[in-house]
């Protein structure tokens, strides 16, 4: 191993700590995103116009402005209205709220993609609307949205790297510090890249396993390959609904 690589590897404990923080922020933000997405999806289908408008505004504003700006708003602007968050919490909130807007649309599409005949069959069988949703619509919607939801988990992970801009010591932030100290940018960023690839592939691999346990009959997943990411990631082109 060259001298440069050895130097960088001396920082491995720092890298691993940062990786842990990245993962921790990712999981918290993803949880928040699930909640935001679910609440917004329900609000967008609500009977009350006010809820629909608010949720619509949330989704459109978040999706049409940069996430970095949203991070800055939470960290630098909220204190001037009395909400003071530490950098990590601010990051969790900003990224969770951001990805929640995307998940909202995923969940909505997931519900509306359940064929209409499913609800009708349940209705004739005598199931109440609530029972129909819980036993027939929701389980199928969950299957439908699973791959896209995992995809958004990966987006959360990648999004955490922006928290370097508010000095959170996550993976990217620590990498820039070590780079400044060693000036070995090739080695430092190559190692960082590798660690991100490990994280993203590990997350989607785990999600793939979970999906296999959760869903019967099995989800249509591509055959396992070298790149677990490919398995759960939705195609860039949405699949047309068979009606």
């Amino acid at each position, binding site marked *: 191993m060259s001298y440069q690589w050895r130097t960088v590897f001396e920082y491995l404990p720092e890298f691993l700590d940062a990786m842990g923080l990245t993962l921790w922020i990712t999981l918290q933000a993803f949880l928040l995103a699930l909640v935001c997405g679910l609440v917004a999806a329900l609000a967008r289908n609500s009977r009350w116009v006010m809820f629909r408008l608010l949720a619509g505004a949330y989704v*459109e*504003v978040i*999706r*049409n*402005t*940069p*996430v*970095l*700006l949203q991070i*800055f*708003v939470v960290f*630098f*602007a909220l204190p*001037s*209205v009395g909400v003071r968050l530490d950098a990590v919490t601010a990051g969790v909130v900003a990224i969770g709220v951001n990805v929640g807007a995307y998940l909202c*649309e*995923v969940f909505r*599409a*997931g519900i509306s*993609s359940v064929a209409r005949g499913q609800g009708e069959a349940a209705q004739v069988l005598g199931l109440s609307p609530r029972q129909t949703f819980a036993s027939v619509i929701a389980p199928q919607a969950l299957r*439908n*949205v699973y*791959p*896209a939801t995992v995809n958004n988990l*990966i987006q959360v*992970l*990648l*999004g*955490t*790297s*922006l928290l*370097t*801009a508010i000095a959170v010591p996550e993976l*990217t932030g620590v*990498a*820039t510090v070590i*780079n400044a100290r060693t000036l070995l*940018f*090739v080695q430092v*960023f190559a190692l*960082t*890249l590798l660690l*991100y*690839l490990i994280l*993203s*592939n590990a997350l989607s691999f785990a999600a793939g396993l979970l999906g296999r346990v959760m869903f019967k009959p099995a989800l249509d997943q591509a055959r396992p390959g070298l*790149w677990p*990411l*490919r398995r759960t*990631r*939705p*195609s*860039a*082109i*949405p*699949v*047309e*609904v068979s009606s």
Partner: protein
Amino acid sequence: MNWQLIWISLPQLLRAFLLTLELAVVSIIGCTVIGLLVGGLRTVRLRIVAGLARAYVEVFRGSPLPITLLFVYFGAALYLGYSSNVFAAAAVGLSVYHGAYVAEIFRSGIQAVPSAQREAAQTLGLSAMQTFRFVVLPQTRRIVFPPLIGQFISLIKDTSIAFVIGLVELMKAGQAIVDRTAEPIPIYLTIAALYFVICYPLSLWVRRNERKIVPA
């Protein structure tokens, strides 16, 4: 809160916004070219080539943009000196990164055309080239445009991440004013409005034209 500040700083912000737009346009062209190339290479029969193209896509889709930008920036600084162009580094980084996503869009767009279409064309006597040119491509275009524009929206927003390599685009220019005036809210609102004005119409277009979907 000093709302006056919006008017005072608007010329400065608009100038930075112009740079943001320039960066976006250059990078959109760049990532489309890269995406076409890599997407095409992925369908090549030579396995090494297809494998490399796939690795490219996987690496960039599995890692965050700041890493790519930092790589390009420091690489350029090392080999071209610190006077090297931050704008160019940002454009290259954005193109390379989003090119991976664009490549996936093109590839799945081509695959979304049912193979029966190809077979039908070939039984009519069209050559492989003619089949691609007259049967597959026209159908691909309709399928590919909405997600492609969606990707461009992401790219436009991602120009703000050039912040991390110090390019004074809209985000950085705005943050400089915030640091100086300690008035974040008016400035952030202005910045948000500028991005929104560009991205929202594009989003509406995407929504109107995208396929009715299951969120696969």
